[in-house]
């Protein structure tokens, strides 16, 4: 089990109802965190359209998660 901070942005924040939360989860990758929060908050956006960052660095869904990490979940971006 790892204790991580998950930060939500835009639509994900609206779904979660909070900016961030601390979770203790049995996860190995960023993708695992995403799947967990999806079921937790009822989101259904496919991960392929979303992005993830770990401790303020862009990451992949296969990136490993360590205890104490902050995972940032980004719904589909739309700058400009």
């Amino acid at each position, binding site marked *: 089990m790892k204790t991580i901070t998950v930060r939500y*942005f*835009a*639509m994900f924040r*609206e*779904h979660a109802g909070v900016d961030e939360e601390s979770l203790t989860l049995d996860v190995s990758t960023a993708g695992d965190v995403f799947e967990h929060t999806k079921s937790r908050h009822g*989101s*259904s*956006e*496919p991960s392929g*359209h979303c*992005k993830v*960052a770990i401790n*303020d660095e*862009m990451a992949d869904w296969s990136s490993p998660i360590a205890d104490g990490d902050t995972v*940032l979940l*980004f*719904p*589909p*971006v*739309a*700058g*400009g």
Partner: protein
Amino acid sequence: MIRMTTNPIDPDALRREMFDPAAGGYCAFEGWVRNENEGHTVRQLEYEAYDPLAITEGELILAEAADRFPHLQAHCVHRTGLLEIGDCAVWVGVASAHRDEAFRACRYIIDQLKHRLPIWKKEHYSDGNSGWVNCERCAEHAHG
């Protein structure tokens, strides 16, 4: 250099900072809030960004553009918060010795920015509904 701001963008002031006596061509792009998107009448746009990573990723894009289309100056500013129709949401300026690099670098920067920066856009429609742009599933959710 890329900058995120909650204040109105001043393209003329930004343009003046691009001056370089070796520059023969200057290309600028601005993204404006328009009154319509995919059949919806838009009233306002709300931009949210995660600034630390938007800046890191933006600097990376500017470095890539400098590498691919060598130029003298490139600069970008993106606004966040609540914007009205006609407001400038993003500005990109490139000054170069010749026009080809100015056009290509400017285009590269805006195209990459739109796909890579952690920025989100919520449209507020005239019918009172709202929706996050580019979210397939959340659109249904938001339009409820």
